[in-house]
């Protein structure tokens, strides 16, 4: 377990970097938060006034100190639009976003990995072509556009999907009792099948449109790593030892693919957290992304910065999880420390 501690310590520089950069963005850049807070009707005097109450007239190091103290107390400021503390707002909406992103990731991984493995075992076969097509398409299509295309095709044309207006049709259903905040899981816990069905129905399109883009890099690296593994010396040894094909494919080749796959997960998460914003906007999903977009439109300064900080923290944690996963998969990584 020592290596887990080591990795944990390793995230400290990233966390410091995140805090410093977020501070820098919100306090040191030429944009004027005081003007935002004062609103459109403000005059120079009222802006000055707000500047003083926000402490924006003090020297930067002092501001930074206050910023860090505030952060340590979980104080991200107050949202102009909701009137609540930003942290409360974010925590309230985070489960919805995590639900969406997790389903997207689950979808991506459960398609991409078998696809990559299959493509590698049958180069130039139909799965291989499909794999390449997905990679090309996902590199050229904006996520929000794909989300909208799906809505047009599956809601309007085919009528398979429910109206893309949030997490649950709240006219027909009431949300399940709050446990985790993810409707699907809460409905499952409550044993409320109609709500589970309804919330899954709302979830499928946004999760797939988001997942499609996480799918491509995972499939590509799985295919490449699997090809390399299958051509490697130790697979030849396994075949020379008469191990069954299944064991060679799964225990020998596939496990060696997990390390390269985990190395693209960082990029995949970066992408998921960013595109989440766009997809939530498209599907009216009431998560932190949609919250950030309304904050952007309303120039709700503290809310946006709080959102950025939270996503960065989440991203650092996800990268930590990936690191630990890599260490568990590959003893060599553990050794290098």
């Amino acid at each position, binding site marked *: 377990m020592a290596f887990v501690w080591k990795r944990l310590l390793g995230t400290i520089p990233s966390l410091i970097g995140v805090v410093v950069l977020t501070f820098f963005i919100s306090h040191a850049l030429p944009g004027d938060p005081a003007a935002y807070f004062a609103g459109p009707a403000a005059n120079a005097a009222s802006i000055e006034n707000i500047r003083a109450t926000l402490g924006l007239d003090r020297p930067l190091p002092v501001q930074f100190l206050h910023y860090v103290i505030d952060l340590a107390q979980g104080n991200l400021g107050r949202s102009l639009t909701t009137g609540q503390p930003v942290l409360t707002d974010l925590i309230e909406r985070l489960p919805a976003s995590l639900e969406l992103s997790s389903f997207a990731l689950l979808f991506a991984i459960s398609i991409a990995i078998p696809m990559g493995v299959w493509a590698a075992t049958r180069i130039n076969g139909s799965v291989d072509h499909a794999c390449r097509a997905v990679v090309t398409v996902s590199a050229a299509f904006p996520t929000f556009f794909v989300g909208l295309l799906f809505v047009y095709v599956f809601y309007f044309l085919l009528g398979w999907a429910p109206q893309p207006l949030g997490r649950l049709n709240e006219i027909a259903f009431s949300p399940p009792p709050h446990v985790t905040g993810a409707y699907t899981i809460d409905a499952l816990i409550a044993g409320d099948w109609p709500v589970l069905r309804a919330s899954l129905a709302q979830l499928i399109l946004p999760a797939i449109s988001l997942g499609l883009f996480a799918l491509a890099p995972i499939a590509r690296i799985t295919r490449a790593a699997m090809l390399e593994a299958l051509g490697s010396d*130790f697979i030849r*040894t396994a075949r*020379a*030892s008469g191990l069954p094909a299944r*064991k060679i494919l799964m225990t020998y080749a596939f*496990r060696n693919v997990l390390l390269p796959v985990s190395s693209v997960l960082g990029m995949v998460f970066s992408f998921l957290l960013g595109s989440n914003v766009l997809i939530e906007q498209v599907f009216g999903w009431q998560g932190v992304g949609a919250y950030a977009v309304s904050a952007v439109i309303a120039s709700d300064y503290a809310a946006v910065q709080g959102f950025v900080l939270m996503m960065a923290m989440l991203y650092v944690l996800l990268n930590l999880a990936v690191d630990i996963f890599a260490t568990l998969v590959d003893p*060599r990584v553990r050794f290098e420390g």
Partner: protein
Amino acid sequence: MAQLDIDNLSVEFRTRHGVVRALDSVSLSVSRGEIVGVVGESGSGKSVTAYTVMGLNDEAAQITKGNITMGGIDLLAARPEAMRELRGREMAMIFQSPRTALNPIRKVGKQIEDVLQEHAGLPSRDLRKAAIAALARVRIPDPERRAEAYPFELSGGMCQRVMIAMALACTPSVLIADEPTTGLDVTTQAVIMDLIRDMSRSTRMSTLLITHDLGLAGEYCDRIAVMHAGHIVEIASTEALLERPAHPYTRQLLAATPVPESRLDDLNSIPGHLPDLRGALPPCRFSGRCERRQPICDEAALPWTELSPAHVVRCRFPLS
């Protein structure tokens, strides 16, 4: 009858750039407990011979003629599943670069257990003990602890011993060692070769030792076959081959082989290079590099010359 018998074997590779005639009429046999060396430059077809015996050739390979039997079983007629069951149990193979030949993220003990589980029919609770016993048999000190190691924690020599332990875990009757000591330092090389020889002798295993180092083959083999461009050009007992090489190529190989007291700069490299195996080839594939070549060498089919019952050479004008 020999334990392993390769008879008149020809193998081609269909590639995008033409058909590579990698093996042509190769015949070779190994008796029980015998160590037979296959020697030749890189690219002469040694590995292809080994892979064909093991049934490990890639899909581009086509066996155009010949027969291979092991203990009376027709290997070329065997179904893939039957071949898989023979591999690891009745015939085993070890390779060069042992450190990459082992799965980098699986404990070496586990890798041996995998083979035992597949072939030895042991209950799973006995697998670990059997794997450790296999490691002990190849004289790995502290086998319990080594079983827990990953390949990257072991030296090249130690990895090769693990490979040998794995290959011999199910006491196969045939072992093919393809350049087992290439890349190891000289001392380790000797240790590994001694081990292979001892194991062959003690279990009466038929061993095919593939190497480009005639010196090494001379030290450990009972008989040696010299291979050039997909042909076996000479087969003889080790003593006869080293003392009375009959094929011009064998003589050049010998000249290029460092004896212990030779220095690197004395080494004669073999002049010329292997012919392209894709084009039209003369009956004697060595003729392009041969000093003794006569017009007839390129005209008529090339007969085997029998110098003694155990010493045959594929040359019209063998050295005497």
